[in-house]
């Protein structure tokens, strides 16, 4: 029995954010579909589109802003499935800074992830009409590293967090929810789609590849649904696959719980309305929009349609 090889590039280190894939691997869902899957963890400074372009992977997980930007930069990537239905991105602020709504950001210091994740924030600020060059009337933007120290140490008034990870870390640091104010991008109407599966456009002309991806998406979604129903086991599977051994059980279990909320209600196919909202948000990115024109052919339902039959 010859297994087809598939390499999946994650966009962050091994954690429950990617539980569905690890579950599919460990529970043998991929093998059932005749696939030999290798999961490549990511990290800061690994740009999954680059790995894809270099032939280092067949399929990548990516946030839509960065994938669409890559597409405009001349790397034609196409979304073939969208297991995350909603966004987990938010800003978390100290309540005692007096922030109650976006207009209070003026004069404050805000930590933002760059690396492609700054787009939704910039677009949001431009919608609010708040400049990002600092000063009394604008916000001072810091390029935040990938941890929550700037908030805890009060170097920033607000920082970017994911519902499933950094927010929990803030709470773990002993800070209670009522000391904080949070702004979910989803609630602000500036949410962009996260963690979609993307492949190179040219590969979709190859029926064998399409078939391989169909099986891959099917098995992955099976993995996700299994993870949603068995969050504790899923978290343990993720822990087993973490080569650094840095994660703790409690943290991964909680993360799995939060992730389940984001994948809930997605069968893997892309919601056109959500896609449209993402594109609109990105086009509205003020003086420096992420993408300058409406993308064409950036997603396809071919594979999910086939997979879900």
């Amino acid at each position: 029995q010859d297994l087809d090889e598939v390499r999946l590039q994650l966009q962050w280190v091994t954690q429950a954010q990617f539980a569905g894939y690890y579950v599919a691997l460990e529970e043998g869902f991929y093998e059932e579909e005749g696939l030999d899957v290798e999961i490549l963890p990511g990290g800061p400074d690994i740009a999954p589109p680059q790995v894809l372009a270099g032939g280092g992977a067949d399929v990548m997980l990516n946030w839509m802003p960065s994938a669409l930007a890559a597409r405009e930069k001349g790397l034609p990537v196409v979304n073939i499935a969208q297991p995350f239905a909603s966004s987990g991105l938010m800003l978390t602020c100290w309540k005692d800074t007096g922030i109650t709504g976006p207009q209070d950001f003026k004069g404050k210091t805000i930590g933002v992830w760059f690396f492609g994740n700054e787009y939704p924030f910039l677009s949001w600020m431009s919608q609010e009409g708040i400049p990002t060059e600092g000063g009394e009337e604008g916000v001072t933007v810091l390029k935040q590293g990938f941890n929550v120290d700037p908030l805890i140490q009060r170097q920033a008034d607000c920082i970017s967090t994911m519902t499933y990870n950094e927010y929990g870390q803030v709470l773990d640091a002993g800070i209670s929810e009522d000391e904080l104010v949070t702004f979910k991008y989803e609630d602000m109407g500036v949410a962009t789609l996260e963690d979609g599966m993307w492949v190179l456009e040219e590969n979709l002309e190859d029926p064998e590849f399409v078939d391989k991806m169909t099986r891959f998406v099917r098995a992955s979604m099976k993995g996700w649904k299994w993870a949603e129903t068995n969050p504790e086991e899923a978290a343990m599977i993720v822990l087993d696959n973490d080569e650094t051994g840095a994660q703790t059980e409690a943290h991964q279990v909680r993360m799995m719980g939060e992730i389940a909320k984001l994948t809930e209600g997605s069968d893997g196919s892309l919601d056109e309305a959500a896609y449209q909202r993402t594109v609109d948000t990105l086009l509205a990115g003020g003086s420096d929009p992420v993408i300058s024109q409406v993308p064409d052919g950036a997603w396809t339902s071919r594979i999910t349609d086939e997979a879900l039959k």
Partner: protein
Amino acid sequence: MSAAILALALWLGLWALNVWLATGPLSNRIWARMAVPLLFGITILILWEIAVRALQVPLVILPPPSQIGARFAESLPLLWGDFVQTILRGALSGYAIGCGAAFLTAIAVDRFVFLQRGLLPLASFMAALPIVGTAPILVMWFGFDWQSKAAVVVVMVFFPMLVNTVAGLAETSAMQRDLMKSWGAGYWSGLVKLRLPAAMPFIFNGLKICTTLALIGAIVAEFFGSPTLGLGFRITTSVGQLALDMVWAAILVAALAGTGFYGLVALIERGVTFWHPSQRG
């Protein structure tokens, strides 16, 4: 295939020209001295351009030099701001503080056996405090702006400078020391008149190695948090945007700054250690 042959021919041709320039009758002209490394660089750039085009390397992996040059020229004001932030504020101040501290420590270590036994092992403990570990901590301690970058640079350059200075201070011959003793020279005159001059070749070794370390330190520290400018900031954000031409333009700035910095130190070295056999040529 033909590209490979073209590239090879070009390489051989330009290398031959270089050999002639470096060793031929013109080799002592100042312009020939300058031309040799430039030619070598141009050779590499042309090969790079040919390779990228012939192999159709995707732009998001490696852009051709022509495109990098264009981006560089377009973004001069932006890159100037980055240069000031990272090199002038972060790297230089860290370099001065770090090398200065290491120099003084080396002198103290050289003076007191106690410190030699106690401090030197501790300092080598500091040798490889890897930037990956120190940078997040120092950003947490010193904030997002250039001060934390300078701190990272201090930590990075301290050890190489210390090792070289300590080695240099030991680099006197027995007779040179005996002479000083016979004049009843005190510790300080021995240091200033004998050991420091004799140590200069080593000290400059350290200073030269540290120039490049300082740049690396300042740039990489920006990966762990920075205001929205700086070369490291530019590189990471541009990688995220897959604007590889911008990444390389920023690298070009770093390379120019680094070469200039190194060249300056090497020039001073020539003036100070003219007497050393390695400089007499």
